[in-house]
């Protein structure tokens, strides 16, 4: 790798980029012009609107049934307020009519006065009607409240004076409020809410423009081949293009932030806020900048990979929309209150940066968090860079000009139901159905909803696919008998699998503490409205054991077997984890899916995996009911901790069982291959 050459490529790409007027206008000039314009416009309109509301006359009707000294005093005080236009009324049937007037904003408030006598004193009762959705009414009402409270004070003082008591007696407590949050912290809290969002969106969107041009654009222009036959190596080319994306992202981000900063100052200045004491948190900004570098590399690697994969710029921009959406959703997390950075969040890209930034701007830097965020993002970025380099070296990707069968999928041609694209399509469809139909069904009636979900959304699609494509389901789904010893091994593995699943759940719980509501939901699932135990077992263990196995081991795994057995086991396992639509159960379910995939591949019989699946699900149920009477289980249930020796023992036991499965079935003659048909 020759850095001089990388630099030559980088310089040329930057020159090329800066000569592209469209890119420069949309990414750099537009924001610079737009922010001041928008902010001045918005600020002017807003302040004008505010003055208008302040100064506008508010019409208040007062219905005074009492006409006592106190009520007259209150009405007089109200009348002395300039912005209130007080009208008194003596009309009967006042209630409904005036309420309507307030509701329609014809008048801003209506006050009904009556009084009672308690302990020998008259008490004036004011019922105030106002409209919470109208700014003018709100303003009027807060003025009225102030006047009522000062009038009350005057009346009470007068009464005390009559009794020869000093009105000082009322001053038992004086509250003096001082906001000691330093201006930096106020600014930090404000910035922390939206800065991460802005930074991430700007980095992704500006990088997207450049990245799509850098490889997909070269394919479009027909320059890719010339650059590949030149003396620059592919690594140097990727590096040069990488530098271009990152540099351009940073330039755009800086320009935008600078413009935003100036505009904000301008607005705050117009609002007569004193910013002279506010010091810009320079150290925090430096730390943010450093933390942003790995994230920018990660984004650049994803975008360069997408661009390399795409056949043309248009295709590339359609791939980039999801990336932007994910960026937006993840970075929004800092806007929600209550989310704070912990070591669990520190491992998730974008979210970690968003929360770290909030922490930094509030001045609560935790060095451990900071390092974990940077290192974990850097690791991911490293993987991303490796992927984009290997893609750029793959000729099938670089010259992916012909229409692929992924597009034929939608055409008339007979689709290959075992192609990975088709399988993933089916999986996504099932997932969507599960979300849009299954979740509401289960919310309405948990047990009936679960039954409907398993039968109609999980099992039915598989049956339909096999039926419509005239595929022999027994063969495809491996519905065949196998050696009895395989069933025994699957049974033997069940308790160890259960312990490991519980242990992985414990790890998840440590990193991302389970919310209380989640645990309650799980509890509810285990009790199923107090159904008899055999019915619960049917719904929670037997039904999923059959239906989910048919989908994942009976169909999904087939889609990946052509690219290698282990790949198929792992991918179908991860899909099985994702299928649960539950962040906390992703890891345990995926591990379970991988084990079931292994069982299937070794024993070549789906009946074994069905049994294993049922055993696992029922053990959760059974143990939550009667576990307290079993020695080891009872301690686990009490302490919520799996002892380390048990974890190690379980791993060892599963490895032994896996080895036995391999040995027992080494010479199995059961049909495994699927003839095309």
């Amino acid at each position, binding site marked *: 790798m020759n850095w001089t050459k990388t630099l030559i490529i980088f310089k040329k790409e930057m020159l090329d980029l800066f000569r592209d007027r469209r890119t420069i206008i949309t990414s750099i000039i537009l924001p610079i012009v737009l922010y001041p314009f928008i902010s001045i416009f918005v600020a002017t309109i807003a302040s004008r609107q505010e003055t208008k509301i302040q100064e506008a006359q508010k019409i208040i009707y007062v219905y005074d049934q009492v006409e006592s000294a106190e009520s007259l005093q209150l009405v007089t005080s109200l009348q002395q307020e300039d912005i209130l236009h007080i009208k008194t009324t003596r009309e009967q049937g006042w209630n409904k009519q005036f309420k309507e007037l307030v509701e329609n904003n014809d008048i801003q408030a209506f006050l009904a006065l009556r009084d009672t006598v308690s302990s020998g004193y008259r008490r004036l009762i004011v019922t105030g009607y106002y409209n919470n959705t109208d700014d003018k009414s709100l303003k009027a009402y807060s003025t009225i409240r102030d006047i009522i409270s000062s009038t009350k004070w005057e009346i009470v003082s007068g009464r005390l004076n009559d009794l020869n008591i000093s009105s000082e007696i009322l001053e038992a407590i004086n509250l003096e409020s001082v906001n000691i949050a330093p201006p930096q912290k106020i600014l930090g809290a404000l910035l922390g809410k939206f800065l991460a969002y802005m930074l991430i969106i700007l980095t992704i969107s500006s990088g997207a423009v450049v990245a799509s041009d850098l490889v997909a654009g070269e394919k479009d*222009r027909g320059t890719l*081949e*010339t650059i*590949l036959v030149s003396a620059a190596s592919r690594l140097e080319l990727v590096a040069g293009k990488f530098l271009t994306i990152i540099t351009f992202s940073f330039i755009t981000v800086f320009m935008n932030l600078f413009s935003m900063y100036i505009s904000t100052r301008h607005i705050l200045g117009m609002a007569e806020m004193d910013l002279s004491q506010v010091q810009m948190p320079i150290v925090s900004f430096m730390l943010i900048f450093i933390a942003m570098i790995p994230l920018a590399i990660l984004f650049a690697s994803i975008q360069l990979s997408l661009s390399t994969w795409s056949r043309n710029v248009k295709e590339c921009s359609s791939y980039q929309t999801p990336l932007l959406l994910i960026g937006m959703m993840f970075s929004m997390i800092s806007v929600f209150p209550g989310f704070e950075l912990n070591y669990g969040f520190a491992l998730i890209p974008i979210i970690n940066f968003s929360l770290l930034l909030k922490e930094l701007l509030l001045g609560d830097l935790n060095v451990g968090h900071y390092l974990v965020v940077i290192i974990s993002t850097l690791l991911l970025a490293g993987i991303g860079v490796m992927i984009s380099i290997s893609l750029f070296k793959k000729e099938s990707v670089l010259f992916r000009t012909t229409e692929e069968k992924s597009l034929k999928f939608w055409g008339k041609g007979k689709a290959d139901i075992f192609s990975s694209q088709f399988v993933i399509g089916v999986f996504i469809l099932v997932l969507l159905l599960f979300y849009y139909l299954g979740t509401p069904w289960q919310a309405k009636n948990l047990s009936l909803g679960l039954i409907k979900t398993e039968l109609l959304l999980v099992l039915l699609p598989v049956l339909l696919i096999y039926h419509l494509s005239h595929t022999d389901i027994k063969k495809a789904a491996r519905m065949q008998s196998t050696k009895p010893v395989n069933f025994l091994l699957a049974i033997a593995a069940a308790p160890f699998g259960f312990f490991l699943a519980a242990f992985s759940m414990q790890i998840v719980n440590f990193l991302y503490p389970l919310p209380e509501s989640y645990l309650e939901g799980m509890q509810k699932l285990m009790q199923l409205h107090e159904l008899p135990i055999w019915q619960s077992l049917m719904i929670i263990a037997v039904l999923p054991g059959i239906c989910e196995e048919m989908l994942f081991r009976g169909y999904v795994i087939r889609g990946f077997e052509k690219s290698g057995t282990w790949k198929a086991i792992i991918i179908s396992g991860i899909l099985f984890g994702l299928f649960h639509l539950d962040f906390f159960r992703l890891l345990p379910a995926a591990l379970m899916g991988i084990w079931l995939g292994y069982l299937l591949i070794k024993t070549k019989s789906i009946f074994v995996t069905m049994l294993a699946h049922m055993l696992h699900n029922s053990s959760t149920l059974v143990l939550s009911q009667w576990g307290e009477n079993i020695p080891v289980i009872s301690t686990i249930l009490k302490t919520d901790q799996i002892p380390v020796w048990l974890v190690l023992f379980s791993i060892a036991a599963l490895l032994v069982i896996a080895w036995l499965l391999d040995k027992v079935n080494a010479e199995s003659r059961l049909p495994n291959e699927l003839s095309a048909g």
Partner: protein
Amino acid sequence: MISVEGLTKEFSQKEGENLKAVDNLSFQANAGEIVVLLGVNGAGKTTTMRMLSTVLQPTSGRATICGYDLLEAPQKIRRKLGFLSGDTGLYRRLTARELITYFGKLYDMPGRKIAERIELIDGMLDMKDFLDKKIDSLSTGMRQKVSIARSIVHDPPVMIFDEATAGLDILTAKNIISFIHSCKTEGKCVLFSTHIMREAERIADRIVMIHQGRMLKEGTWAEMKEDTGEADLDDIFIKYVSSQNAPEFEVMNELD
């Protein structure tokens, strides 16, 4: 200069199935010689050219260019190679001079040498009027000259033209053809691919006919004429294609 032995390229098409785009191809091309790779669309010409220019890796077989092996020293080969294809694009926002200089730098040429070389190429192709104009504003003919200049900035001894005249009007195509002839007089080794029989007829010293990835026939124009008894290159080509598809013809040819 170019020596190809049993070159084969397979593309995995559907899962499991492979397509042999180039199948066991062997030929030679020497210095000062124009060899034309002739075949219909999809015959494997572009794949062969891309393998020889180190953009694609062969599945099996070997080839050497200027003595360097394709798999062992691709970087060295690229320095000896000028590559031009019909749909070659240019960076439209750069000027002609910037573009040529950029490629020169990628070949590790010092700035002074690049300037000298541009001067020389300018004399050859007459580019003075538009050297410092942005490529965006140039005509097709001018752009073609820039492409040529780009491909020879490092003065390579071997030139590869992949359908270099495809889609060009007669006048622009003529630029290329006369440039190819000048390459020959300079003693360069030229490999030229086309599907147009007339073009092959006009410039080839030797013709390598390929069909469905396989070598159909190699020889001079005169040899082929004599071999088939046909006068027209179209007829010659068709005759060779039908002989490949019908085995008995092949036997008869070998007996000849």
